[in-house]
């Protein structure tokens, strides 16, 4: 089985543990990138691939929880699997609230870690797809004229061409032409498709 390209990062200060995780991941065909400190991870180049981060809670200098906060502040979304030698409940609650995928206590079951990695990579793959789709839609949305952009919220609110023409003060035929251009530029295959795109773009309904 040829694995789809991805990146697994490991930040762990203990060399034995770091090596052990590397051995485990390699035994299932993953090639992790290893870091001893949070700063090394921040300084590293990260390719645009589905990724996940295996992060020790207790690290010298910047701790695992600190790194999670920094990444979130920098709007870097990467699924995080925490591992810790002594997990206490408040600590794990904090980590999970801040969006961690999993919180494992050493020594953990290997299957738990591998499952968490697979889940994280899948989640990231979906997230990345979604992000790139939205970026695509944004581009198409930018190509619309001002009038077409004005029209979109009215359209997806389920108003008829006639109601719209009355609302924006133009002929019904003009609304029809704008609507046709809009569908084409947004590459919408159906009206339902357009509604979904508008939802992804976060365009609000205009209440009747």
């Amino acid at each position: 089985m040829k694995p789809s390209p991805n990146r697994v990062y490991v930040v762990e200060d203990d060399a034995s543990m770091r090596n052990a995780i590397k051995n485990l991941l390699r035994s299932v065909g993953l090639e992790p990138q290893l870091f001893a400190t949070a700063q090394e991870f921040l300084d590293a180049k990260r390719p645009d691939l589905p990724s996940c981060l295996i992060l020790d809670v207790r690290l010298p200098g910047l701790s695992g929880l600190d790194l999670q906060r920094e990444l979130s502040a920098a709007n870097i979304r990467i699924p995080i699997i925490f591992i810790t030698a002594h997990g206490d409940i408040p600590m794990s609650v904090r980590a999970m609230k801040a969006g961690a995928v999993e919180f494992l206590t050493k020594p953990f079951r290997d299957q738990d870690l591998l499952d968490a990695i697979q889940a994280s990579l899948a989640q990231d793959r979906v997230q990345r797809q979604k992000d790139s789709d939205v970026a695509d839609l944004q581009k198409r949305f930018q190509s619309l004229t001002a009038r077409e952009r004005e029209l979109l919220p009215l359209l997806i609110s389920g108003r008829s061409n006639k109601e719209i023409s009355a609302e924006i003060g133009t002929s019904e035929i003009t609304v029809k032409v704008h609507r046709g251009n809009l569908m084409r530029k947004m590459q919408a295959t159906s009206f339902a498709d357009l509604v979904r795109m508008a939802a992804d773009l976060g365009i609000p309904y205009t209440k009747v």
Partner: protein
Amino acid sequence: MVSASLNRRIHFLYIPHICMETGTYSSAPSSATLLRYYEAFMRIPESPVFRYGIALLFVGTALGLSLLVHPSLPDGFLIFFLSAVMLAGWFGRTGAGLFAVIVSMVIVDYYFIPPYRAFVVELDELPYFLTFLLSAVVTSWLGSARRSAEEKQKAHLDELFEQSPEAILLVDLHDRILRVNKEFTHIFGYTIEEIVNRSSIDLIVPSELRTETITAREQLAHGKDLNIDTVRVRKDGSHINVSEVAFPVVASGKNIAYYIIFRDVTESKRALEELQKAQAELAHLSRITTMGELAASIAHEMNQPIGAIATNGNAATRWLGQQPPDLVGAGEALECIVRDANRAAQVIGRIRSLLKKNPTPMVHLDVNDIIQEVLLLTAYETSRRHIAVMTQLESRLPAILGDRVQLQQVMLNLIMNSLDAMSAITDRIRELRIQSSRNPDCVLIHVEDSGHGWDPQYSNSIFDPFFTTKKDGIGMGLTISRSIIEAHGGRLWAERGAPYGAVLKFCLPISADAE
């Protein structure tokens, strides 16, 4: 130290006595034999018959000699008779001295003062006769006074010898026992009669120390004083711990005998051992307490390799489960398991040695190793408490001679104190700085923190037992640490940090054969 000053004291008192004893016999064949003659001579019978008889003997001898020289030397009698009365005074004391004077007076008047052979004195000769008489009285008195002074001095010295709280033994150059005192008979259980004239080494030296003792005696013969703590045997065969001081008795530049002084140290040795045992127990207790405080840190330190072993085991299983099995990958994982298991065993070994009760041997140690081993144990604790640890360790420090566990305990105490002192600090960096450096004759270690330090009013008491500023401290950490460092011949002291915190410093002497 005590025995050394004792040594000097005895020396000072006894040497004049010995010199006097031996001065008379400078040309004698064997000094020890002479010493015995002298002892016998000093025990002259006190009977009046002997005392007066000997006075007569001296006077008679003087008369004989005087008659012999009289024809050629008319005044020669003076010297003989004066000598006779002096000797009579010395041997027979005042009474016999005066008796000799009277007899001499009569004889001299009869034989040597004109008119000869008559008990009368010519008027012209009267001053001459009276001068003789006066000289004789004075000489006789001098003799008896000298004798009584000598006796008094000897009595004092004998008293001192007998009453000395230490056992004293006098042996000749061939180890024959000449004399022992009362304390010696008490300590060793022999009576004087049983022991005099026998070999001291045969009687009181355990057979396993025989060669050593003979060597020491030879060194003594070469003028080296001896001052040792050793074991001797009593008459009943039981052993006794003694502090032994020996020195030669010197006369005219030659050794004539040896004094050996013993002090029974069984009791003080036992007390010292009890004290050391109590100190070791206290230190052990304090180690256990500290290790208890470090339990979380130790668990963490153990959990890392165990977690790594489990994970590597899983990896190896997966490598082997593949079709075909990946032996290279499995081998790598297994190598890691061995390494991690060794690491776990090391941690356990370190902890076990710290919890051990028995003292570990004194060995050559690198102070930096000690520091790093302890920092490993406290690493989790420092990270949990958000304390930055800075080390500045001078490389290639000379070795010191020490007990690894005890020195680790000192480091542990100082570090844990520093961590506790910084627990309330929120407005500045929590920093533990550890430095090692080489001084001319010692290795110096600093343990510095940015904590609250201590109130200057307590400067003198921080090393006192049971002094503590911690809520739940027992106040023995620094006391024990100081006693450990001092037992290593070093020093431990505290300084106030600037502008805050505390600096604990200790120095350990560089081992003499370290380089």
